[in-house]
């Protein structure tokens, strides 16, 4: 049974739809990421689930029970905030035992539970410290332990890593996933960081303009984005707007190799999206075989084992195409070199043209 179900959620602010028709069902113990750019409504959606905002329409069901109008304090959800929001007048231990304390649990039990959780997040030796004596990463661990102390039905994480530096973010991301799996708690994580969403989630829900555009596993989202926005937002790659022509995509004077005949009629307007890892390149020796395009190397970005290269394709529109090349091969190419690029016909994702 899905433990969290969102049905037809809508929210207006100042006559504007902040959320419209949100439908989402989450399985028990699942971690789902709400991913989208700033202002897409993901935090509003999380706050509706938490009970801080009442939706204008729709329902929030937890374990089959309608909690849409239930006060946040009665929902038994744990929330971790972007700014940690630890109570500054309490030690780490007191912060973690706050939930059991207000619930009236015996003190010995509160302390025992808080110590277990501090141990789980690796902060046993910091229990007597006040928040200002802890680093950002440590504070967020305490916040996570505090949220888990109420044995929540649902754990809500509102951009929990965005205030941390890159190294701590990476480390804590893995810890959150481990702890979430150990606790088996259904979790909703809000983020605008696609790498974070893809690496931590069971499923990713991509949002834009108050709508859920696609809800799928990270691999599905990456390989088969539902539309141009999802394709552009998740990972990197080149997007070309054009028309289907004999299964390929005509973009200006170029006929880009694709396999769209089964899904799109000839002449239909589409967007073609291709990821850098699907593109191969070689020096342009004057010949342009079928299914290849010619271009000039504009820039190279060293990524370690791979080098990402941007080709400016020939033609009046100066389209760009990205290719990931093993770094040892990339050393032979310099900006200004003429290159040809090609890819497998099945590699590009061809989607109906997005009007947004």
């Amino acid at each position, binding site marked *: 049974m899905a433990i969290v179900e969102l049905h037809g959620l809508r929210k207006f602010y100042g006559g504007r739809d902040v959320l419209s028709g949100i439908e989402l069902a989450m399985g028990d113990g699942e971690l789902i990421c709400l991913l989208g750019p700033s202002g897409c409504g993901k935090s509003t959606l999380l706050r509706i689930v*938490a*009970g*801080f905002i009442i939706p204008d329409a729709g329902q929030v069901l937890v374990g089959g029970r309608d909690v849409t109008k239930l*006060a*946040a*304090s*009665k*929902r*038994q*959800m*744990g*929330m971790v*905030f972007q*700014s940690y*929001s*630890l*109570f*500054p*007048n*309490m*030690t780490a231990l007191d912060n973690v035992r*706050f*939930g059991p*304390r*207000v*619930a009236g649990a015996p003190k010995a039990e509160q302390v025992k539970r808080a110590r277990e959780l501090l141990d789980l997040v690796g902060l046993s030796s910091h229990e007597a410290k*006040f*928040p*200002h004596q802890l680093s950002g990463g440590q504070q967020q661990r305490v916040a996570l332990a*505090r*949220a888990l*102390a*109420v044995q929540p039905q649902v754990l809500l994480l509102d951009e929990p890593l965005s205030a941390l530096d890159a190294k701590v973010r990476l480390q804590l991301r893995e810890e959150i996933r481990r702890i979430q799996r150990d606790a088996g708690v259904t979790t909703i994580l809000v983020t605008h960081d696609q790498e974070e969403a893809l690496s931590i989630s069971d499923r990713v829900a991509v949002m834009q303009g108050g709508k859920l555009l696609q809800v799928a596993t990270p691999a599905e989202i990456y390989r088969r984005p539902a539309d141009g926005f999802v394709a552009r937002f998740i990972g990197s790659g080149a997007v070309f707007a054009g028309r289907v022509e004999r299964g390929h995509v005509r973009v200006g004077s170029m006929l880009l190799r694709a396999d769209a005949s089964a899904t799109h009629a000839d002449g239909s307007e589409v967007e073609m999206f291709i990821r850098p890892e699907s593109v191969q390149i070689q020096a342009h020796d004057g010949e342009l075989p079928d299914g290849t395009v010619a271009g000039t190397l504009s820039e190279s970005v060293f990524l370690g084992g791979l080098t990402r290269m941007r080709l400016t394709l020939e033609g009046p529109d100066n389209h760009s195409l990205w290719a990931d090349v093993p770094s040892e091969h990339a050393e032979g190419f310099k900006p200004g070199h003429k290159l040809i690029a090609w890819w497998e016909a099945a590699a590009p994702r061809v989607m109906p043209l997005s009007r947004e």
Partner: protein
Amino acid sequence: MKAPIAWLFIGAFLLVSAIFLVAPTAMLAVQAVIGDDGLTLEYVQTLGSYRYVKAFEHSLYLSVLSATVGVIAGALIAFAMLKPGAPRWLRSVVTSFAAVAANFAGVPLAFAFISTVGTLGLLTSMLKHIGVDLYAMGFSLFSIPGLTLVYSYFQIPLMVIIIIPAFEAMQPAWREAAENLGATGGQYWRMVGLPVLAPSLLSGWILLFGSAFSAYATAYALTSGNISLVTTEISAVLSGNVSSEPQVGAALSVGMIVVMVLVLAASQMLARRASRWTVKQ
């Protein structure tokens, strides 16, 4: 600012403090124990007389009461003004009024209250007209409760100005976190809100206490010295209304300083306890 320039200002401040604070205090202390025949405790001992004990009692009672009323009312007003959903204009109206009212004291304030709630004041007359006789009910503007009311006029706005930054520093997410963890509004304020505000409330209380304890003009203008306060007694012995006894005045002043030092020490102790979680520790 470069260090030498900074030290120039600090030096000037220390010099002014030495001339106008330390030296007069030392002189008062010396004057209080030096009589015509040399060293004596005669003037200090007069502080134990009924008249001066009453003056200290009245001053302490008035200061504690008006400071406490000021802290509670000022904090509640600031809270109402800053709480989420409060209209934006309310803040500018209240802070503008508070800035003016906090500095409105002395004879004009006394006159304003006499014309409003004095025996023949506008409000007194209006209430009498509808059958509510304030003075018959035991109220008097020219009493300690009356003085407390008048002092509250500048104490409450002063507290509003002092406590606004403390309220603004409170993160709304603390409230949400507490609510999310199952706390009621009361539990949040008891366990988080008030402890976080406590150092600022204590500091505000001390400031208000000091302001009331040292106030003279308002009380004198209102009661013409009929209610004995330490400040009005000092004025009486220095101006020679009863008899000119500058040494008694000095002893009373030293007594005031001792009270302020004791109150400050106690509040410091409490503030240290209340703010042990802050960064300064």
